[in-house]
């Protein structure tokens, strides 16, 4: 079944501007990046380019499996649903993610992409998109 998810259109086009990060926190009423579930990084220095890191929407999500309170739950069609009020900020989910796509907010709780697609509207160079995709299809990265 197809679901709408944040996808990578062409990662090689990323210039590392991080507008996606700022959009993500802006959506939550923040000027900054504290709650951002996406991170723009250089590839061991900008001379080798840049990339973005965010939740791959796993179908069998390790981060949800290690959550002791059920604050992080598997979402149907891939990814997670995060309920902040149930979260004790243990950080297990952050450690469990192999690609380090869950970030620690200033208050210790996790910041994770919920695939709302808001950031994609701001991506200036066509790296990100928000589209209906088969779960296994968009996880290939090369599209």
């Amino acid at each position: 079944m197809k679901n709408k998810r944040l996808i990578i259109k062409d990662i090689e086009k990323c210039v590392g501007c991080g507008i996606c990060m700022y959009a993500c926190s802006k959506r939550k009423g923040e000027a900054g990046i504290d709650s951002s579930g996406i991170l723009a990084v250089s590839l061991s220095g900008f001379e080798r380019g840049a990339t973005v890191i965010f939740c791959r929407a796993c179908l069998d999500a390790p981060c949800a499996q290690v959550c002791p309170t059920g604050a992080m739950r598997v979402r149907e069609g891939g990814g997670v649903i995060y309920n902040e009020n149930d979260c004790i900020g243990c950080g297990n989910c952050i450690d469990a993610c192999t690609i380090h796509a869950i970030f620690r907010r200033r208050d210790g709780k996790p910041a994770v992409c919920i695939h709302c697609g808001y950031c994609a509207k701001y991506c200036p160079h066509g790296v990100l998109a928000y589209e209906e995709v088969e779960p296994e299809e968009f996880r290939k990265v090369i599209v």
Partner: protein
Amino acid sequence: MLTKILYIDTSKYKYWVEDRKDLFEEWLGGTGVAVQLMKENMDPKIDAFDEESTIVFAVGPLNSAYPLASKTVAMFKSPLTGNLGESHAGGRTSTSIANAGYGAIVIKGKSKKPIYIVIDNDKVYFRDARVIWGIEDSLIVARIIAENERGRGIRSIMRIGGAGEKLVRYACVTTETYRHFGRLGLGAVLGSKNIKAIVVIGRGCRKIKDRKSYKEIYDEIFKLATKSDAMKKYHLLGTAVNVKPLNEKKGLPVMNLKSTSFEYAENLSGESLAEIIGRRIACAHCPVACIHIAVLRLPYENEPYFYKTLMLSYDYEPIYSLGTMLGMKTREDFLKVLYKVEAYALDAMTTGVCLAWATEATEKGLISEKETIVKLEFGNSDAYAEAVKYIVHQPNEFYRILAQGVEKASEVYGGKEFALAFGGNEMPGYHTGYAAHIGYLIGLRHSHLDNAGYSVDQKIDSYPKPEELVQKLMKEEQWRQILSSLVVCFFARGIYKPEIVCKALKPIGIEIEENELNKLGEKIYFEKLRLKKAMGFDAKKLRIPERIFETETPHGKLEKEYINQALEYFAKVVENC
């Protein structure tokens, strides 16, 4: 509002935070606040390398809140001019500082041994840098620090190369590989304090009360940045687009400004360099991605089919200073010298002007290979690459002096008439007319960006009275004090006009009218001028290099009398402030 100031005393390895709402409410941030912090924290008369010499890094209310607000202001005593040093850099500096929760960082004292400083949100760590001290390539320094420290993607690594360690008075501080606190020698001040690098890791935010109006003005700015023509120049060829038109109009300084047109200008043009762009990169929170990176592919000297691939960022200014000023015939020649300048972390503009002066001084017999070791001749990139190394290593008296800038070198060896420095700072790349040169002389940083005289020259047909031109330039500089207090990129000045600035400030809790904003710009300007005076600035002592009267500009040859009158008028302004 970002009102916290982080103080770091490197003599005692201590740090503390003060909330200075008073300062930020009165002076916004950036330049406005930095001037006040310099006044509070440093005796204006002390030497740039004194233990008590202070460095301020300041951001403003718009940093990390809006696109294109991606600059940090550094203020310090310049070892090059002996006067006020101010330099702005992009990269991730401003967002990291703002997201860590600070409006400014004040660095004092002098470490006994080499260190690098890590500012990780609320904490500061003093790291042992003895092992990496002596690594001359600023890129390698950053790679090592990046592997040692956390904060990938949310940090800025500001570091010095060999030039800063060796106290070359125009050593820069490089950040995120391609951006620089370029001018006036901040790298040497860090070097004098035994600080190899400053890492700022910031994750945080400011809560916005009025989300709706914040989103509206954010989207308006974002749209202007991405959909209108406001940023087009920077988005397309970048500032390098200037090479061809300046050459055609005879405003391009060539071979130490002996000429203003160049037969090889085409090879060094934005169009030519665009053919070898390897990638584009952006400063944090900027959709424009104006950082143009060229690929320089060099074969190994002794082995066939082996290549090293260097990625070098270029702009108009290094093309001018290390390209046309040095008579480079090809883009590869220019990039080879730029590579050395970047590795050692030198200011590209001053380095180019120094080498151009030394080449002409060689031609005129004032110096010889006895001093320069390599034979300097316009167009010889291998010789210049060697000379850059000597500026850093300073193997003899000549290079020890050249490492102090062209003003000093010409005092010792002669050739003042073609030593292209203004207020002790080496010339930017515009020989466009009166406004450019008067602008360099009266600008409080002696930078073309202080008041954009070069732009005035290119827009007007005939000049007003000298006093009127000075007033016009001062007015522009006063508005730019607001831009550098917010702190937005000067490239975005077409977007951040007074109306937009007022609208953008409102959702983050700052209510100010356009006329108040203009008044504040004027107030900051005069505060800065008074600080400059306290540091010993005397407008009557400004030297005008004779060369600028000998070489054709787009407005013909310049008359000395006009510039003298402008300076007389400006001297009165300085006296009365």
